[in-house]
């Protein structure tokens, strides 16, 4: 379970990454990208791009008319016998869930995987109210035992080895757990089966909310999603308002994009379509169904036309898999429930620049994420917009970076606006670098740019193209002459001024 952070220090988090962690992350991401390539290849590039564009268009259309679709969704869910609640923020969402639990005397809850409930810290709130909550997705179950947050959207425990998991089970479950994935999964099945049968309340998120029919769509492979939403008599779903899709037809596109992008499956094992509580006693399933619609900053994200595309996300995790930064640091470095490229754009918008202002810069802007995103979110574009928000501020939020950056940039920018100053600078640097220079390199630079040389040497300044170019023509040679005279005059004036000033001080 993640804590809701007060400040994310990305660099410090990176420095704390265990050296063996990137290898296990890369093994996972390489596997997912491999299986994805097979199933996307099977569809063919043309069909895949057609699906991506349609997915983008459907999601964007929904966001642009979100108020109408939310109202329709609420109407349909209510008609089907469900209850709809609206939560402006995490605190309100937790309060609503606790009230429902209290009314039903809930003591034990089982939970299917839900990023939204991670985001609001629901487990903490329930624990504080004396309700035991068991994570039932195997990866979430494991990290719950370990007391940490998820390190990948799809495989939350990918950073752990089977030996580590075996030790965890032995210690926390009091069983003799061998370091074998099959045995460990069997232990989880036995442990959780009883919990499913005894739970008073099942908690879930949703992958999609279908406005046309009031249907909750839950995609899963293990069957725990079905167990949580079928066996307890009470089902509570906490879902971001950005999960809405217009109609069932939209899922024809989105359900082709999601499993392929997430795990390289053509279809996940189970997709549940839940519309209200059970239709009759005999059917089995919950007697009561509650949907908690969560804002928690999403309406603010809608305000910016570019950044609002963050909400197109269908939580497939492919951007993590293909991101070189994520592959070298893993999920915990991003400090919140969402990691990788989607985390770098979503967390700053949910948490604000003061908390998460580091994250938009945690990217080399390589663009691989945008190439792979099944709904074509322009992630690098949004990263740049959010960098602007952090450094200069925009309509949505004021700047959170220290003003000295803007001031320094203004001074530096002067050199780029005055060509003579710029050219003078290029020549001064060639001279000034002399004490630091070793052959064609500067192995160490002064702070703050010593951060470059932490990793590799900086090339020596060597600007001489203009001279070469000018020396090719008489007009050019004349210009060179003028520049030399000008430079000498400038230096002489500077020396003269300096001598005069020092002379004056000496006389005082």
């Amino acid at each position, binding site marked *: 379970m993640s804590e809701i952070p007060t400040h994310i220090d990305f660099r410090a988090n990176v420095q704390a990454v265990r050296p063996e962690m990137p290898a296990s992350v890369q093994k996972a991401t390489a596997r997912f990208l491999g299986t994805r390539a097979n199933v996307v290849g099977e569809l063919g590039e043309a069909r895949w791009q057609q699906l991506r564009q349609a997915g983008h268009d459907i999601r964007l259309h929904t966001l642009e008319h979100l108020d109408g679709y939310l109202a329709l969704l609420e109407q349909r869910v209510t008609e089907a016998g469900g209850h709809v609640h609206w939560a402006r923020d995490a605190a309100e969402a937790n309060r609503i869930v606790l009230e429902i639990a209290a009314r039903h005397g809930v003591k034990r809850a089982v939970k299917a995987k839900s990023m939204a409930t991670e985001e609001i810290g629901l487990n903490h709130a329930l624990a504080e109210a004396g309700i035991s909550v068991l994570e039932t997705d195997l990866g979430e179950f494991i990290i719950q035992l370990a007391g940490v947050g998820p390190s990948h959207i799809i495989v939350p425990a990918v950073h752990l080895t089977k030996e580590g998991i075996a030790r965890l089970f032995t210690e926390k479950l009091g069983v003799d757990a061998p370091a074998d994935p099959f045995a460990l999964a069997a232990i989880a099945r036995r442990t959780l089966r009883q919990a499913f049968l005894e739970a008073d309340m099942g908690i879930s998120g949703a992958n999609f909310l279908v406005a046309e029919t009031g249907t909750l769509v839950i995609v899963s492979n293990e069957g725990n999603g079905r167990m949580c939403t079928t066996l307890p008599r009470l089902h509570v779903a906490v879902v971001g308002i950005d999960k809405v899709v217009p109609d069932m037809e939209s899922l024809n596109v989105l359900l082709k994009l999601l499993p392929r992008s997430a795990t390289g499956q053509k279809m996940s094992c189970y997709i549940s379509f839940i519309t209200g509580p059970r239709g009759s006693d005999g059917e089995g399933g919950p007697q009561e169904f509650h949907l908690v619609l969560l804002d928690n900053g999403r309406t603010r994200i809608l305000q910016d036309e570019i950044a609002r595309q963050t909400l197109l996300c269908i939580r497939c995790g492919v951007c993590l898999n293909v991101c070189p930064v994520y592959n070298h640091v893993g999920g915990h470095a991003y400090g919140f429930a969402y990691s990788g490229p989607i985390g770098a754009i979503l967390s700053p918008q949910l948490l604000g620049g003061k908390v998460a202002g580091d994250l938009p810069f945690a990217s080399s802007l390589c663009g691989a994420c945008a190439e792979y995103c099944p709904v074509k979110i322009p992630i690098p574009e949004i990263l740049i917009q959010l960098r602007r928000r952090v450094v200069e501020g925009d309509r949505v939020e004021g700047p959170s970076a220290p003003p000295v950056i803007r001031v320094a940039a203004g001074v530096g920018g002067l050199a780029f606006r005055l060509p003579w100053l710029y050219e003078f600078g290029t020549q001064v640097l060639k001279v000034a670098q002399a004490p630091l220079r070793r052959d064609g390199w500067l192995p160490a630079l002064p702070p703050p740019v010593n951060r470059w040389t932490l990793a590799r*040497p900086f090339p020596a300044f060597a600007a001489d193209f203009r001279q*070469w170019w000018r020396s090719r023509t008489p007009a050019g040679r004349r210009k060179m002459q003028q520049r030399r005279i000008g430079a000498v005059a400038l230096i002489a004036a500077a020396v003269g001024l300096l001598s005069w000033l020092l002379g004056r001080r000496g006389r005082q």
Partner: protein
Amino acid sequence: MTKKVQLFITCLGENFFSPVLRDMVTVLERLGLQCEMPEGQTCCGQPFYNSGLQSQTVGPARQWLKVFAPTEGYIVAPSGSCAEFVRHRYPELFPPGTPEHAAAEDIAGRTFEFSEFLTKVLGATDVGARFPHKVTYHASCHILRGLGLREEPKRLLQAVRGLELIPLPEEETCCGFGGIFSVIYPEVSRAMMDAKVRHIMASGAEVVVVGEPGCLMNIAGGLHKAGSPIRPMHLIQVLAAQE
């Protein structure tokens, strides 16, 4: 259009890659083009923009436009990121209604990265180069994804006499430069650079070719630190070679 090329030398090109700029002139003149170099150019402003300093970008951009707008012919840069920035961002920075808008639109229509200019504008892949070495190619992010040039740089290399092009594992993975990224998060940048250098060293190539000055700075520094004899070169240097 006249067969004139305005040299967009770029701030990194000017300060660190003079030989590349000279070779660019050599190749273009070999292809029968007349080169000019607008004197007042400094920097297109990209480093500011990508760092979130959009309001500070306008000044340098305006200066750049002032220098290049009155020129004739194509504007060619030894850099994908700079060419892409001018093409893509200048019309946004100077939207309709601003005095610079017309100039920005005009510029956007005639600014190119070098390999793009050769293959797409001139329709040339063979530029008369000879470079009998084992060469591997790193696909810089802006050239690959920003400008959509996946095959073009490699086609140019394949047309070089005597050159053996060896595939680079993880060719399309970012080298870790990322502009200010390399200075803000040096540990991650280094990890990415180390991975790229490892792949280059394992490729069996004598030379690694890069089309982007920023990547070249990063990879060259990494190879030097690793004590590797593999030569990092800009694509233009290989195309100018007549060994």
